[in-house]
């Protein structure tokens, strides 16, 4: 069953690579994927089929756990479950749960998949990370300049 779940994740991610959204896509070891995506950064997504967790590892550097930015990020992520959001934008708690962790100021974003809905989970976590970066562009441009070499005008 775990292998089947992994195959679903693999195929779902591969579809983004096939469409040119992810570049340099590879599975460096079983359940651990690397690809170049937003802001031309290499990103790493792992899947733990035992714990049913998809994780963008070490996605955001330079975010101290005690910082207002981290508090705001946690709040933003929880709002992705908000029922006021349209269905196509919302992460349904019955199907998946969003969370984040912070180790030494580096934030990882996770999504716990329920009922083995891995295709749903991959779709949601990829869209969630995209929206997170749109949010950072909008609300925290200085953060992206300092930590991602985003261009200043």
């Amino acid at each position, binding site marked *: 069953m775990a292998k089947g779940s992994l195959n679903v994740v693999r195929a779902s991610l591969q579809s983004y690579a096939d469409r040119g*959204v992810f570049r340099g896509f590879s599975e460096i070891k079983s359940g651990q994927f690397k690809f170049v995506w937003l802001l031309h950064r290499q990103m790493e997504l792992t899947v733990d089929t035992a714990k049913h967790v998809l994780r963008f590892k070490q996605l955001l550097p330079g975010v101290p756990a005690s910082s207002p930015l981290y508090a705001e990020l946690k709040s933003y992520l929880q709002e992705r479950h908000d029922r006021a959001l349209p269905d196509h934008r919302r992460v349904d708690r019955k199907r998946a749960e969003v969370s984040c962790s912070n180790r030494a100021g580096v934030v990882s974003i996770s999504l716990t998949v329920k009922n083995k809905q891995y295709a749903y989970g991959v779709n949601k976590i990829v869209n969630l990370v*995209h929206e997170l970066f749109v949010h950072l562009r*909008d609300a925290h*441009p200085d953060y992206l300049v300092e930590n991602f070499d985003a261009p200043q*005008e």
Partner: protein
Amino acid sequence: MNQNRHANRHNGDGDTVPDVSRRKFITKAMAGAGATAAAILTTGEVAAAENTEAHSIRIPDEFAQAEKTSPVKVNFPMSGAQVFARLCKEEGLAALFSCPGNYPVVNAIALEGIPTYSGRHEGAMCHAADGFCRVTGEVAAASGTEGPGFTDMINAIATANAARSPVLVLASNMAIVNEDTEAGIQLGYQQPTTEGLKKYGKRLITAKRIHEYGGYAFRQLRSGVPRPVHLDFPAEVTRASFKSAADLEYFHDKARYRTTAKPHPGPKDLSAAIDLLKQAQRPIIVSSNGVFYSKAWDALKKLAEKAQIPVVESGAQKGQFSDDNPLSANAAPSALASADVVMLVGQYCMPTVGEFAFGPDAKYIRVDPCPEDIGRNLPIDVGLVSCEKAALEALADAMPAMKHDAWVAEIAAARKKFEEENDAHYAKGLSYTDAVHPAVIAKELADFMYNGKLPKEQTTFVAGGYGIARYVRRRLRGYRPGQILNGAYQYGAIGPDVGYAFGAAVAVRHGISVQAPYKGSPVICVTGDAGIGYTIMELETASKYRLPIIVIVYNNNAWGTWSGNSRSPVTMSLHLFQENVRYDKVAEGLGAHGEYVTQPGDFKAALERCYQIAVKESRPSLINCQAKKEFWVKQQYEPGFLGTVEPGCMSYNH
């Protein structure tokens, strides 16, 4: 007055050649200014009428004389410069912006009756040409002298290139006979310098082919994706004399050397695009430069309304799709990630993956006249090689009537949320009373242009600046094509804004193309205190031509980059100016009206005063809004420095 007689002199061989003296240049350049001084030159004075002091600022009488002088048609025998100018006239070159230099070409163009203006800096004049193109869709030229006059234009050429503007760059280039000698001054190889900054370039070295290469130039300017074209003219070419058309080996009517035919979408590709749009639940159209240059706004509206597809704008100019339309998604940034099919129309400056807010599942249709660019940066699902207008007309005819009510409602909700954010910024900005917060400028400026006494589609606006632009753009709305010039755009140059405003004001003064209904209306420009330093002298140019431009300067005593150095005592001062610099006084010294606003409550009245001066005196103004750099620090002054979401009203990079 027989201008042709005065425009020429005899060389030692008995041939008639243009008089290229600097004195003659100044007179002739003014002669072509067309209607420039229509509202201007009856008194010859810029300063208040009662100011009779001997040293008051005044416009020389020669401006009025030039205004009264009609262009005279020149016939063979003609110089090379005159042959080229005739071609420009027949091709519809809409304006020339110059500084002294390249006298034979500039004089000949002016004498053809093409509106010709001369300013203080070739770079600013090249920005003016760019600005003119971007609010009219027509071709404008910029000219400078060989060597330094030409290199002064480089930044502006690069900016126009990134903005995909059809700017014709003309520069003189001494004589071929002196090549590689360093004889005299100002020799230089020009064409390699513009490599990568132009669509086409040529040093004209064979005089009898001048008409042929003019044809090359206009084919490039008027087809496909426009970008600058650079021609440089050695003296042997401009001064060559032609007794008749037979002396020119290539001298044809434009119907013989170029076509107005445009590429149309192939049936198979069109069908694929229609299938994708029909399947979409949340389709959206991105309208960009190509919709403007192909004049496709009616077809865009027809398609959008028939299939109920929302439209969001991007690009170097905005207004092709009215923000009045409920389908406008320009001010709905939080909805963009919901789109499932995105049709990019005329998006010449392409974002990379993730730069536009559309989500990773969105499918893309791209409409572009150049097949070689389709697929660059963003992967596509369908590519339509077509003139934008032809593609939109074909889609509007072929698409069935559709309804996407839920999607439109989602966009309306996002728009409401965005406006509430803007209003919250304004309320916060008003609470800071010791300086003028950018949210106050943005809100009250928008109210003045769109919600007050002016018809909301009237004012052509130049959206420059850096931090201030991030507030102002959130409030900018376009209600007709050519209404918003989107600053320096992708090249990100600092300070072209007064140059742009000058070019836009010339376009409005003459009522060129889409500016015709607003002929003579004032133009408003926002810039920063860093930017104004680059082109403030062009307020003197605007004053002498009496162009009704209002320049709003957001003065926070610093480059926009200061905040990144706020923790570095060594480098912080590199990003600062003197505090409270009086740009308004500089403007007054240049013949414009100046206002200094230090409190938020005073901005609106200052703007109204400037507008009245613009209307009644056709005179430029500068409003120096005193802010403080700390407004960018969120912890001290919420909301601080703002980010952007693209495309839409905030978009700038693409």
